């Protein structure tokens, strides 16, 4: 389950890194933005009386659509604000600027979504088992409306999440390998200059990549929110870092590597929580240790070519 959520963010990182060779560190925050977009839209639509009027799947789709549009727009903003100005400068600049942008997104969420606004939504949803870490000391722990299998069991919800995941992967796979746009994205990922020479509109494709990444991340935020049941404005930092770690573990340029890495990271965490006594507290730490070990000893990832730096 954790693996699924990490995988979505990891794919986002892979898409961006593949096309632009930069790491967009605000992925986690964009996903969080999507989750909060759903919460906000839910509150607005609920008060508009749409909740009962529409059948639930349609309602969920509507919410997802709103979140997807918001995230895609934010993806574009992050490209124009934090990536484009630094195309020709050192690699650290986009890194810092995306992190800073992530902070801005995060804090804006914290300011807009005060707990009082969402009191109603929290009352409506059935209180599932809240993760204690997300509740203690939070500025705005928001209850995520339990949209997937409302009233159903945890198992049902988990299966739904895995299904969503598989569908998304299938669509992404088809898109990347069967459509012209997807193939051009792969071409740019392999060699930007050559792709440009063969007449591809590189700029357009980069922009489209950010839109698609935004869509993916909105689903990621939706899945994460549904899984954790309670979301916080600053959840994106941890989530994004782990997504990036998953991408690195898998190999930064490969989409399948991201899937494997995400699953691996998820399994490590769950096993740490399950097998070690008192391991729930340690799961994040163990995940980070795994990441550090991976970066130090196999920085090119599971699937990925070793690069040797030349002068």
């Amino acid at each position, binding site marked *: 389950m954790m693996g699924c959520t990490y995988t979505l963010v990891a794919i986002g990182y892979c898409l961006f890194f593949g096309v632009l060779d930069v790491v967009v560190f605000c992925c986690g925050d964009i996903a969080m933005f999507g989750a909060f977009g759903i919460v906000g839209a839910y509150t607005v639509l609920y008060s508009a009386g749409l909740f009962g009027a529409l059948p639930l799947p349609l309602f969920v789709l509507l919410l997802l659509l709103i979140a997807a549009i918001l995230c895609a727009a934010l993806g574009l903003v992050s490209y124009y604000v934090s990536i484009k100005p630094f195309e020709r400068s050192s690699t650290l600049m986009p890194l810092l600027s995306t992190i800073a942008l992530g902070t801005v997104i995060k804090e804006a969420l914290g300011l807009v979504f005060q707990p009082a606004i969402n009191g109603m939504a929290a009352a409506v949803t059935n209180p599932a088992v809240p993760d204690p870490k997300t509740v203690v000391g939070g500025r705005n722990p928001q209850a995520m409306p339990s949209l997937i299998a409302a009233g159903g069991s945890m198992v049902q919800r988990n299966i739904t999440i895995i299904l969503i995941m598989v569908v998304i992967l299938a669509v992404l796979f088809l898109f990347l390998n069967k459509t012209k746009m997807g193939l051009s994205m792969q071409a740019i990922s392999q060699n930007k200059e050559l792709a440009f020479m063969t007449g591809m509109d590189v700029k357009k494709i980069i922009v489209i990549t950010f839109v698609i990444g935004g869509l993916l991340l909105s689903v990621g935020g939706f899945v994460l929110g549904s899984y954790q049941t309670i979301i916080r404005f600053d959840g994106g930092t941890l989530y994004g870092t782990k997504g990036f770690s998953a991408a690195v573990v898998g190999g930064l340029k490969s989409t399948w590597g991201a899937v494997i890495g995400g699953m691996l990271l998820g399994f490590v965490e769950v096993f740490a929580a399950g097998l070690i006594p008192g391991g729930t507290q340690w799961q994040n730490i163990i995940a980070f240790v795994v990441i550090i070990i991976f970066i130090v000893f196999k920085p090119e990832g599971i699937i990925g070519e070793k690069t040797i730096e030349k*002068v």
Partner: protein
Amino acid sequence: MKDRWNFKLSAPAIVACNILISVLAHLIIVMPFVPSMAIMVAAVVIILIMDRYGAVNEIFDSYIAHKKVAVVSGAVCLVVIPISLTSQNYAAQIACTAVVYMIACLGLNFQMGSTDMTNFAPAAFMGLGAYGVGVAVKHFHVSPWVGVLIGVAAAVAFGFVIGLPTLKTKGYYLSLVTMAIQLAFTQIIYITPFLGGQGGLTDLASSGGRFTLFGLSLYKRYTVAGIRFAPQIPYLIFCGVVLVLLTYVAMRVYFTKSGLSLNTIAQDEIAANCMGIHVSKQKLFAFVIGGVFCSIAGSLYAGLDAYVGPDTYNFSKSLMLICMVILGGMDNSIGIIVGTFLLTVISEKLRDVGDFQQLVYGAILVIMLIVRPNGIIPKRVRNYCAVTGRTIQKNVLKAAKAKAGKPAGDKG
């Protein structure tokens, strides 16, 4: 290049300049939000305009030329600013916080500015120092000075531990390692009851957590000549002295061969390696010395707040320190001090207005990176001859004059 202003400040002018800077600093700290911001913006704009015509560098050169006057008048100002705050607790608190952050940022600069390794864990290093003091006071019931030593020792060890992966990684990977370490640090403290867990170690003051010097408490309300001073004032003076010492160390390191090597690694690591610079050793050195600076800052912060908690030393604090270094100007100690001062004051004054601190940091960082990625006072062009002393410098200049038309060995 536009026409540059060529002028040298005389000794009295330097004293006047120091007084002007102190008055500005005093006003910025003491004034309420709006006028304080106005003065700050005006000062930054003036600095930027002056820098455009090269005047800031001229002033630096004049300061170096009249070193003694500058140092003595600066020291006087350093004592006068804290005393001028008299009984204003809050202003003194802001000033203290600013000084502590300045020390941490100087440490971070060794890694970020000099060597171009973005370290996302300076707050973890600060935390080491702070928890050193906290543990020493709370669990071992010894003086906080012992805590400082514990913190420094921990920072050296931790610097090695962080430094080792950096020998193998760079760029994004290095950033990720340090980020993971920072996040893991917070998580580890959360779950360690010995370190107070999420609540942190509170009420250090009652267990003797305040620093004392020669039997005098550095955090106490003193009444001198009928004026009641805020309790932070002596501590502020003490922190200021530490800051000056550490700034001196940082500047000395900048001018040694080690500092030069760090800059070389920043520009091209492979070339540096080929030129016989021991890259791993220098990188470890940057991490260790930066860690020690941050740890000292953390210890001082613990002494100021009498509280050590995991949320004080989390990822956003690291981000804040990075933001300060970038705003001030990487690889320029004075610039960093200015940037840290401005940002600390902005954020502390914003506290009255609302919970915007992090938002403002993020926004300032984005804007600065786009508009002026080098910071308010960017790094100066290195005078490479200064490394080995003045005689050689003269010889090189002579040689340069002999080869008319060719510039001396400045890379620019």
